[in-house]
């Protein structure tokens, strides 16, 4: 995931986020009240929301080799 923060003149910032580095075609954009620090603090939440709302676009994590169903990962 990569993101970019742009400061606006109306005391808001715009957070652009994309997942091109993961070969996932999702580009999000959200306006946040406050400055760059506020936007930075919101990054993990926005990322989590996008991963959740567009879960079908992200590749399913591969099962570790030798791991069987019902077995706990250590």
């Amino acid at each position, binding site marked *: 995931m990569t993101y970019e923060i742009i400061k606006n003149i*109306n005391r808001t910032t715009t957070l652009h986020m994309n997942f091109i580095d993961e070969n996932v075609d999702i580009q999000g*954009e959200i*306006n946040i*009240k406050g400055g760059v620090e506020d936007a930075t603090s*919101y990054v993990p939440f926005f990322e989590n929301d996008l991963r959740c709302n567009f879960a079908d676009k992200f590749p399913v994590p591969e099962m570790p080799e030798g791991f069987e169903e019902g077995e706990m990962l250590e």
Partner: protein
Amino acid sequence: MGVSVIPIKVPALQAGQEYTQDKRDRFNVSLPVDKVRGLTWGDKAATLYVEESDNGSTWVATKTTAIVAKTTADTGWVTLSKRYYRFRIKNGTATQGSITLYQQIVGMGSYLDMEEQAGIVVLDHGIPEANPVPTATQLTGSIATTISSPETGIKTVTATAAEVFAGATKKANRRKLSIRNESTALRFRVGKSDVTQQNGFPVEPGATIIFEFDPKTAVPIYAISEGAALEVGVCEE
């Protein structure tokens, strides 16, 4: 015998000008029209005609009635014999300041109900060429119906005010935004970009707030949690 009365919009006529009603197919309603009658009033002299036609293009005056200035003219009941009929007003030598025409109809055996009357009124485009033609109006932008698939999703509302939408970005031309507070304990507040934990509109746990928009105007809605981060369910239409 019931009588249906239909007001006909007649433009103010210039000297010598004519108003000709669109042809009416007397069988184009569930109950065929048997008799018609015209009542008109004008502040200048004119002539009122009830005309009939077999083919809708060649017309014969079945009844001719003089309109005396500032006096109601009445054609009396005219029993129709041809398929099409219409009213026509030929103005005299003075410009009308005001003229009005009411059409009365008697159906064969009964009267036309309100729905049939409405249908007839809608079909009336009887404005003469010399006068402005009514402009067709198409209604768009109703918020009463959904015309595109809704965007749905969850959004995390934190103590930093941020926009609320369902997808990756705010839905273009959205008409409606519904936000449900999924928290069982925390409130959040909504408002414009300067919303705070004090001035925003509170949304209680489990409550839903709905905004309706003019699709042509993009209106951002911001939300801020009163405490820890919480999840909201969002639907944009």
